[in-house]
């Protein structure tokens, strides 16, 4: 009977070696289940959609090369600002010093 048990152990040992498992007949807690777990990080990190190349990126790469791009939205914006300025509705001049900002407040 004892011989049979040792033979079974040998079989288990070979089995573990073939399938690259941990041979642990005493059933010690070796923490191997932690090593067997797959890493969840890459799957979790891919939840939100990643940034893709945009027209803005293309513009940014073109600018240092001296190339100009035409952006209709930006053009419209600048035109609207020009019109607002002509109507006297542009942004107020930036106050550079503390004294300037004080006089601006008093006028109100």
């Amino acid at each position, binding site marked *: 009977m004892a011989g049979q048990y040792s033979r079974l152990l040998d079989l288990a040992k070979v089995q573990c070696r073939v399938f690259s498992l941990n041979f642990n007949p005493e059933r*010690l807690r070796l923490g191997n289940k932690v090593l067997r*777990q797959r890493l*969840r*990080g890459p799957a*979790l990190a891919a939840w*939100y*959609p990643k940034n893709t190349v945009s027209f803005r990126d293309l513009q940014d790469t073109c600018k240092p090369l001296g190339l100009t791009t035409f952006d209709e939205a930006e053009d419209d914006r600048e035109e609207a600002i020009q019109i607002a300025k002509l109507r006297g509705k542009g942004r107020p001049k930036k106050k550079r010093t503390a004294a300037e900002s004080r006089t601006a407040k008093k006028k109100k």
Partner: protein
Amino acid sequence: MSQFRAKKLDLSGFINSRIIRDHTKRKVFEQYEPERQALRYIIRNTTLPARARAQAQLQLSQMHAYTRSTQIKNRCVAGGIARSVIRDFRIARYQFREQALAGELPGVKKASW
């Protein structure tokens, strides 16, 4: 925490501060996951010296909260809502309804019988 946040935004689509925070946590977790697993292995292995295991426990408990997977929460990709998010579509229930009715989700059909 700001020390982990990407200097340049690397997300597209709907973005709010909570989405950025959660995304940061996800990336930090991904980065530190091997380290955490190694420490967990040392802690679980009863054949290692008790001192080493206690040290590993201490080290694991002192790692930053953002390296923990439990900090991660699935949020709606289209609206940032954290409640009732359907995992298969990564969308919360109302966005799911809107998009499904608009026919933007392939294979989703309103049931009627």
